[in-house]
């Protein structure tokens, strides 16, 4: 069953040099209990996609298109109606747990304030729920933790608390924006495992946003690769990562430190990702693509459907061989 259906989403932000589209004509779906990964370099529009679902776009940002969540259209929703959905049915955890928790409020206040607002529960019930949540995310000694402030916890613990906060009202969709980027490698695995357990135990749909393909390969069912605000490739995670069809996806995989054989040099994608407001015309990736032809410079890239479950946006489609990439 489809929980979230995004169609032709375009997000326009106000920059110093005027309005610019940070997300362009994006469409995707998430089923219940599914984990979708969204990957891409910085500035590819991943976070803006997430924030437009939350209705939390930055100052003077605007979303158009359609975001259908559980039967309700979120684009054009009144702020009041958005607040009813936000934090209750859709929750979000942010990149840096050192800054995303309020430094002056106790963990109890931060865990229970939205619970009390949305579910109208008593203080005692909210506290019981908070203890349960801290236990779920494996915070030792939940009773003491409730009275503490975020500064008394490590980064990994804080991210666990942030996850507990997001889960407080039993949301249907959890958006995790770079949930492990700011954490130590050893802590990352624990957080990812926790997210996967929660998905299973609570039938939660999750969107994980990251630039780390390693994180996605371990966790997600489906994967969408973004470049310059638009989708370049999507499909089941294992297929996309083992047999990428878009030159950009191929470039991302080649750039992974452990992808090649030992001693092989890392291959970086030539050039820099384009800045907001300066996206190239045609296929935005053509300026960095070794397969680019003259027709890539204008028009929109061809949409190629593969077996009905995968698609790429590429006019050239250089890896269109039965075995995928021939290496």
């Amino acid at each position, binding site marked *: 069953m489809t929980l979230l259906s995004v169609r032709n989403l375009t997000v326009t932000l106000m920059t110093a040099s005027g309005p610019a589209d940070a997300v362009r004509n994006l469409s995707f779906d998430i089923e219940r209990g599914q984990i979708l990964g969204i990957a891409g370099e910085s500035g590819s529009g991943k976070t803006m996609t997430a924030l437009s679902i939350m209705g939390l776009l930055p100052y003077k940002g605007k979303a158009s298109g359609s975001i259908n969540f559980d039967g309700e259209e979120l684009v054009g929703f009144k702020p009041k109606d958005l607040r009813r959905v*936000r934090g209750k049915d859709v929750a979000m955890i*942010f990149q840096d747990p050192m800054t995303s*928790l309020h430094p002056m409020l106790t963990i109890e206040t931060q865990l229970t*304030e939205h619970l009390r*607002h949305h579910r109208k529960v008593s203080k005692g019930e909210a506290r019981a729920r908070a203890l349960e949540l801290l236990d779920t995310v494996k915070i030792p000694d939940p009773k003491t933790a409730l009275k503490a402030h975020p500064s008394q916890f490590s980064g990994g613990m804080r991210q666990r608390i942030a996850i507990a906060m997001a889960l407080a009202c039993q949301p249907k969709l959890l958006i995790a924006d770079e949930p492990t980027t700011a954490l130590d490698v050893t802590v990352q695995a624990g957080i990812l495992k926790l997210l996967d357990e929660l998905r299973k135990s609570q039938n939660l749909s999750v969107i994980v946003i990251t630039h780390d393909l390693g994180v996605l390969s371990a966790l997600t069912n489906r994967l969408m690769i973004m470049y310059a605000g638009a989708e370049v490739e999507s499909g089941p995670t294992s297929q996309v990562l083992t047999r990428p069809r878009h030159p950009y996806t191929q470039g991302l995989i080649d750039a992974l430190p452990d992808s090649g054989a030992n001693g092989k040099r890392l291959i970086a994608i030539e050039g820099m990702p384009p800045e907001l407001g300066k996206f190239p015309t045609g296929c935005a990736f053509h300026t960095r693509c070794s397969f680019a032809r003259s027709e890539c410079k204008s028009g929109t890239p061809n949409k190629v459907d593969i077996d009905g479950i995968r698609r790429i946006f590429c006019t050239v489609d250089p890896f269109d061989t039965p075995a995928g990439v021939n290496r």
Partner: protein
Amino acid sequence: MKVLRGTGFFPFIIKRILTSLLLIFGMTFISFCITQLVPGDPVAANLGNSAYSDPEIVAAFEKEFGLDQPVPVQYLRYIQNLSDGNLGISLSSKRPVIDDLREYFPATLEIALIAVVIAMVLGLILGTISAITRDRLPDQIIRVLSLTGVSMPTFWTALVFFYVFFFLLGWSPGSGRLDPGAEPPPQVTGMFTIDAIINGDFATFRQAFSYLLLPAIVLAIYALGVLTRFTRASVLEILGNDYVRTARAKGLPELTVIRRHVLRPALLAIITVAGVAFASLMAGSVLIENVFSWPGLGQYAYRAAVGLDLPGIMGVSMVVATVYITMNLIVDILYRVIDPQLRKAEQ
């Protein structure tokens, strides 16, 4: 002194109070040095022309006020007076300076307190509205008003307000602290409104309050402009924080987000400015007190300065410095009340 080596809230306060006392003591030395450096002869300033031409009177005057002694001895004499609690004898009023201050200081404190409450409350509200309606109409109106408040010279505002609200509209009873001939309430704090309440005399309270409202508002206008602009800036800064986005992501009503998640951290910065603003209100009320014939510290300071009344000047600077130091102390303590992290960090 076990308590001094301890950490936590109360040892912190005790330590801060002790350092404040040291600061005040150091301040007496500096202001004494400055008064010694001021050119001018206090004897000439305080004696009439004929008396000044009589060497015997001059000698008697110098002897009476210790002006014939070497400077270090004069300082010791001043410290002696300080510890006796009378702060020396004023050259102009011929009374102990402490008695003068007891009379004039509460008058200024009274309007400054009201002014700072007006400025704080309105400044917080207007600055917050301005920040959350950023670049829209309410913000632009508030920004123009607060800029006007900051840019208008205080003496000019005082004159205009006096003209409009007393002369034209008759809403204000005019200058002074009470109706002519009215009996001030028995002195407890020296602030007529509070003394009237203590005495249970509500008619006098109403009267005193109606007299002090206009000078207090005029005094508040400048501080209000500063506080509004500062509140807007700090609220805007806090609004950009990740934790505010987290609060909004929870779907909380915007008012809750502002009140609980934004204003608390913003208050830390605002209180600092308010503390300094209060102290400068007290020091800067001279012109307003002149327009409203308000018998406060400003008027006293002006007379002491013109008359080269050294003990008087010292007394005033002592009071002003004490107010500044006390405000800083209060701000430091409020910090710890608002921000639990600071308290915890010290334990």
